[in-house]
């Protein structure tokens, strides 16, 4: 086994180790360590991706010295490589973009704690992507939740405490359901590793035994992970959480944390429960309906908002709806569209949160639309970033969002019964997206008289070089996803084939 096969394990352990070391470092050094860690992890994940692309197959990495049914395993293929590298990039950009705010909004002396959370979050996300063991997945789901909660409450304002409490309650409900479904699955199959569990589930289906418990297990698992990722009726925590935490936290939470659970769900569908029977089962119809509802309701709530951060948060509800709608189509093309949308949504939502912060910095720190008027002239880079993000979310060609909408539409056409609802909801949701994003873009480019502009300028919080750099990189990432989507879609496709 070549040396590169160790890299997934190294990246997880390195992240956890850096988290532990950060606890005795000063805030400044912890920051440097986190950024360095993200760069190193990016290189490690990219080399895993290059290796799996060249070898053309996935590999299983045995942890410790116990073989398959007893030990713990890591599994890496093309899909895992793409996701891990991409997550590292997004996290790095989101962190760099919000550095100044982290320095301002978090009590000095506690700043290293923030970077501990970042390191642990990265470790748990990578572990969720790579692991081949169900119970390990549960443990890292909880680590992910705790780290995310820490990132929300570290701002130490009343709003962020309440947001953290609501986030925790919803997340705990989700993980409770996930845990009991894992226990019933273990009771049914007697396996915790995904590969033998898949065999056991297939044997159960063939014999026709215990079909009701299996259905209950599938339902509990889906609902649990759907609650955690914020699918439409369970989205109540999202606007608070993304609206009142520090800029980097909002960007990381909306673009990565909720996606980690969706990836785990897809993984369990494909690697344990059997993609064929899930995709032809009833559960995907449920996801389809709630996905469609989320697409519409999220956008309607976003239109009613007068706070830019909360508006972007409600837009996230809609985008999570898109992803579940793609899963709910029950075809391979739908799942690939969802996976691509995970990437494109992460790229555009991170950009939107970071540039919205840049815009409110030059408007006296206010997030209200009436104060943001003319902010585009005061901070052109952030305004450009916001415009690109908005265009990508609306789905204009050249940008990432267009490709994912195209993929969703082509996947929707393949299924005669689901075609009409998919296309109608895509169209309606696009129009609604345009309404609120266009309104915001128009607001920030509305000229204000010189007096008000100078007043706003006097109150402005210093804007940093790091924010500009991050916005620029995010814009480039969006364009790359939009213009060179073919190799990425192909990679996702081959990765998905390796899954099952």
């Amino acid at each position, binding site marked *: 086994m070549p040396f590169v096969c160790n890299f997934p394990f190294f990246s997880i352990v390195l992240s956890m180790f850096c988290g532990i070391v950060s606890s005795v470092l000063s805030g400044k050094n912890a920051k440097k360590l986190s950024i360095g860690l993200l760069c190193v992890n990016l290189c490690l994940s990219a080399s895993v991706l290059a290796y799996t692309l060249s070898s053309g197959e996935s590999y299983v990495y045995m942890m410790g010295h116990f073989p398959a049914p007893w030990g713990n395993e890591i599994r890496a293929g093309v899909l895992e490589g793409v996701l891990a590298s991409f997550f590292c990039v997004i996290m790095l950009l989101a962190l760099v973009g919000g550095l100044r705010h982290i320095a301002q909004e978090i009590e000095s002396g506690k700043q290293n704690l923030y970077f501990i959370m970042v390191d642990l979050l990265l470790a748990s996300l990578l572990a969720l992507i790579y692991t081949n063991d169900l*119970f390990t997945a*549960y*443990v890292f789901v*909880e680590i992910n*939740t*705790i780290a995310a*909660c*820490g990132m929300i*409450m570290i701002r*130490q304002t*009343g*709003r962020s*405490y*309440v947001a*953290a*409490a*609501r986030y*925790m*309650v919803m997340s*705990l*409900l989700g993980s*409770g*359901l996930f*845990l*009991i479904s894992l*226990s*019933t699955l*273990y*009771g049914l199959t007697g396996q*915790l590793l995904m590969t033998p569990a898949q065999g056991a589930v297939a044997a159960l289906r063939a014999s026709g035994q215990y079909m009701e418990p299996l259905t209950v297990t599938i339902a509990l698992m889906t609902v649990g992970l759907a609650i955690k990722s914020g699918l439409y009726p369970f989205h109540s925590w999202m606007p608070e959480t993304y609206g009142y935490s520090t800029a980097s936290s909002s960007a990381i939470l909306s673009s990565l944390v909720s996606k980690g659970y969706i990836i785990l769900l897809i993984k369990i569908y494909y690697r344990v429960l059997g993609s064929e029977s899930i995709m032809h089962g009833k559960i995907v119809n449920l996801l389809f309906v709630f996905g469609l509802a989320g697409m519409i309701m999220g956008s309607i709530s976003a239109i009613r908002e007068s706070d830019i951060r909360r508006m972007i948060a409600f837009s996230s509800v809609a985008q999570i709806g898109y992803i579940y709608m793609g899963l709910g189509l029950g075809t391979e093309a739908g799942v690939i569209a969802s996976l691509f949308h995970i990437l494109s949504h992460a790229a555009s939502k991170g950009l939107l949160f970071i540039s919205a912060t840049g815009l409110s910095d030059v408007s006296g720190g206010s997030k209200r639309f009436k104060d943001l008027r003319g902010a585009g002239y005061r901070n052109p880079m952030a305004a450009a970033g916001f415009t690109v993000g908005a265009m990508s979310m609306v789905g204009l060609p050249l940008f990432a969002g267009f490709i994912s909408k195209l993929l969703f539409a082509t996947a929707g056409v393949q299924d005669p019964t689901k075609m009409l609802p998919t296309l109608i909801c895509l169209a309606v949701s696009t129009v609604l997206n345009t309404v609120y994003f266009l309104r915001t873009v128009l607001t920030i480019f509305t000229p204000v008289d010189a007096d008000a502009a100078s007043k706003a300028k006097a109150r402005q919080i210093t804007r940093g070089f790091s924010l500009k750099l991050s916005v620029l990189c995010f814009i480039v990432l969006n364009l790359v996803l939009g213009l060179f989507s073919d190799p990425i879609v192909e990679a996702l496709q081959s990765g998905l084939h390796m899954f099952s």
Partner: protein
Amino acid sequence: MLENLIINHYETAAVLLFGIGFTTLLLHQNLIKKIIGMNIMDTAVYLFLAAKGFVTGRLSPIVVNGVQDMEAYINPVPAGLVLTGIVVSVSVTALMLSLSLCLYRRYHSLDLDIILMRVKKEWR
């Protein structure tokens, strides 16, 4: 149906407890009661796992006089899972308690509705 429930009485009790914990966590407005609900929910899962792993008439899997037949021992894996789960739920409980403490110090209430009302008033 009823007979099955009585035979698997441990699992029945576990699922009932899970339901009680889940609804408490979801519906109660008091943060401490929410935490209690969460603990009931987690403990119910551990009862379920422990009941799944136990086989009447077998020994605990501790080797004393050389390894006996595999059939002599109960399944040790669920016990390991329960231990891991307890560690997780202890840390989550600690986090939730500290969060409740922060909220109580600032808003002098444990009721989530009242806290929300006071937060909205404060931020207006």
